[in-house]
Every structure is written in C-alpha cells, then in structure tokens.
C-alpha cells in the first residue's frame, strides 16, 4: 500500500519536474529540476529493490553529471537573458512533435501484457553481490572495454579544454 503511494508520488514528482526542466526559462532551474527528477528516479530504483543502482545513480547523475552541468552554467554565467526569444511557431511545432511521439509511445505500449513475467522469486537481484558477480563474470569484456571509453573521453575532454599552443 505504502509503496503504491510512494510510486505515485515519485511518478508525479518525476514527470512534473521533467516538464519543468523543459519549460524553465533559466538553465539553472532546468538543471535543478533535473536533479529532482533524478532523485525521483533514484526513489523508483529503491522501490524496485535496486539499491545499488539507486546509490550509483545519485552519485553519478546527481553527484557528478549535474554538478558538472551547474558548474558549466555558472562558469558561462548563463542567465535568463541569454536565451533568445524563439518564434512561437517553432515552439508549437516542437511541442506538437514531441507530444505526438509521446502519444504514439503511450498508445503502442499501453496494452503491453507481460506474458513472461517470472515469479517474484529473486528479491536479491539488486544487491551488490549479485551485480558484482554478473559484472565481473559475464560482463567482464564490456567492463574492460569501457575503460577504453573512459580513456578516450578523458583524453578528449582534456584535449578540448587545453589551450592550444600557437
């Protein structure tokens, strides 16, 4: 019972804040609402018994990614005035397009019947031990390969931020 209310509460927060992300004029408000959305998502993860992911989600998204975002916004000092006025036609078109996408998705997925739901047999799948075993077992290769991804991202970010010597 409790968890259902929680679900609806978190869902409401997530969607409401997601909307505000899009429609806030000031980028920093967008970022802050996005953080709230992320927290709501983390709450959902908790509800879904994925504690590890919830914590990682907070650390990575709220703790690192969004900090970077806000950092950049501050550094660039993006205020309300920066965003120029866009023609309403484009805005309406964008909204309509997005809404159509949403409608299509919702309409297509509304009727989804999950035929092959296995029994609520394994509450421990979100536990770190399980995840660790899978990650370093079956997913060893992607784990190793993702180091290349990080290296390249790191080199790339450093390269782009470096002052070019001329």
């Amino acid at each position, binding site marked *: 019972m409790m968890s259902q209310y929680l679900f609806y509460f978190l869902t409401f927060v997530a969607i409401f804040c997601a909307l505000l992300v899009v429609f806030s004029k000031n*980028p920093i408000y967008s*970022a802050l609402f*996005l953080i709230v959305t992320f927290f709501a998502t983390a709450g959902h993860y908790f509800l879904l018994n994925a504690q590890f*992911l919830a914590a990682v989600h907070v650390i990575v998204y709220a703790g690192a990614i969004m900090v970077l975002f806000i950092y950049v916004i501050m550094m660039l000092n993006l205020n309300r005035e920066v965003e120029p006025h866009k023609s309403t036609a484009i805005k309406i078109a964008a909204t309509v397009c997005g809404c159509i996408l949403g409608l299509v998705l919702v309409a297509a*997925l509304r009727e989804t019947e999950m035929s092959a739901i296995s029994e609520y047999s394994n509450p421990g799948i*979100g536990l770190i031990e399980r995840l660790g075993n899978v990650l370093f077992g079956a997913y060893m290769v992607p784990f190793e390969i993702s180091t290349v991804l990080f290296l390249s991202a790191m080199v*790339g970010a450093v390269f*782009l931020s470096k002052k070019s010597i001329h």
Partner: protein
Amino acid sequence: MEIIKGIPLTSYILLCSILFSIGAIGVLYRRNALVIFMCIELMLNSSNLLLVAFSRYFSDTNAQVFVFFIMAVAAAEVSVGLAILMMVYRNTKTTDIDALNKLKF
C-alpha cells in the same frame, strides 16, 4: 518493498515513455545547447528506469548491469559534451544552437 504486487509493469512503461517524450520535446523545444543536453540525459534516464523495472519484473540481473554501463557512458559523454560546449562558448560567447550557422549549404 512489494512494489511488484501493487503496480503493474505497464505503469512503469508508461512513466518511462512519458519521460522519454518529455526529453524529446525538450530537445526540439529548447535552443540552449546545455538544456538540450540535459533533456538528452532525461531520455537516457528514462530508459535506465525502464530497464530497472524490467529487471525487477523479470528477476534478471543483466538489465541492471546494462544500466550500470549506461551510467558510465553517460558520464563519459557528459564530460566530452561539456568540453565541447565550453569550447564553443569560448569562441562564440553563446550556447544558443541557432547562433551556429556557419555551416549552411
């Protein structure tokens, strides 16, 4: 938490679809590259949530590991993306994507 008994999976699918669409709307609606980027993060986030929901309902760990990778990739992408943004800002003093019109055919 017995979420699985009270809430059907469909609810999660719909929630994620809506979040995804909001992200997409944001990408189309906003002109500020930073906000567009945030909306993209929102989209990634919605698929993350859906994957976790699936994982819970299927009792399958794989999806959660996938989410883990998505987070890793998102972090990497953000670092590069913000570096690009800063670079652009240094040269143009704006993050408005409409200001970028040097390349038109």
